[in-house]
């Protein structure tokens, strides 16, 4: 398979994740869509690594996985904290910080 197929698939997955972030309102699903976008970027990194024939791009993908894990842990901690304070789990209602 040509590498460009992988890149176009990665663009498609990134776009689907972006749609999810734009239209969903549950913070949990927004985190899931962020995961989709990070994974699309990972696919692009690994595809470019294969295109160059150099495994260093795969180390980038692993670092992105670490970042994604940190983001999930902190995000889910925030969601649990929101839930504990009996606030609505809806990004349209959580607008106290809005200017």
């Amino acid at each position, binding site marked *: *398979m*040509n*590498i*460009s*197929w*992988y*890149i*176009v*698939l990665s*663009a*498609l*997955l*990134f*776009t*689907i994740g*972006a*749609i999810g972030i*734009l*239209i969903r*309102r*549950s913070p*949990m*699903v927004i985190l*899931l*869509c962020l*995961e*989709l976008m990070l*994974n699309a970027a990972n*696919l692009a990194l*690994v*595809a470019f*690594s*294969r*295109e*160059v*024939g150099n*495994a*260093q791009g795969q*180390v980038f*993908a*692993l*670092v992105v*996985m*670490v*970042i*994604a*894990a*940190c*983001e*999930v*842990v*902190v995000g*889910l*901690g*925030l*969601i*649990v*904290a929101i839930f504990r304070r009996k606030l*609505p*789990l809806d990004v349209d209602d959580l607008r106290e910080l809005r200017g």
Partner: protein
Amino acid sequence: MEAVLFFLAAIGATAGAIGVVALRNPFYSVLALIAHLFSLAVLFLLLTSAFVAAAQVVVYAGAVMVLYVFVVSYVGSGHEPMLDPVPGQRLFAGLLAFFLFVEISAAVLSSALKALGTHGPDVPAGFGDPAAIGTLLLEKFLVPFEASSILLLIAAVGAIVLAGRRKQRETA
């Protein structure tokens, strides 16, 4: 054979991604994301990156998704209202996403990267296996490796601080 496997995995990944966005129940969204991650692992294997594929399955589809399942079952699947609070939000989101897709694809495919239309160069047998990645991590990328371990530690402490019970404040 490779093309068949690529298209099967690509369809699986796309279907999983659409499932994450479209399903109402967050629990089903998490399950769709797990299917998506497995399909992506197949794609990574096709790109001869065995270690990234294994890490994807073990760390992502295994550990991170279990965390999601726990939190979804703790918080419960709150029902999102079907109606858009902003009129036409879905339409605008779809249009923006379509243009984003066209833009990314055009930007990458019209770039001067000649090797994009090829299969990639022939690589030696050990390309992307755990030994090669481990050597890279511990020799060339030692500082990022240590930094990411410290980052994980900080994230774990931060999650405990954020989500932990605060006895003083609750009694006060």
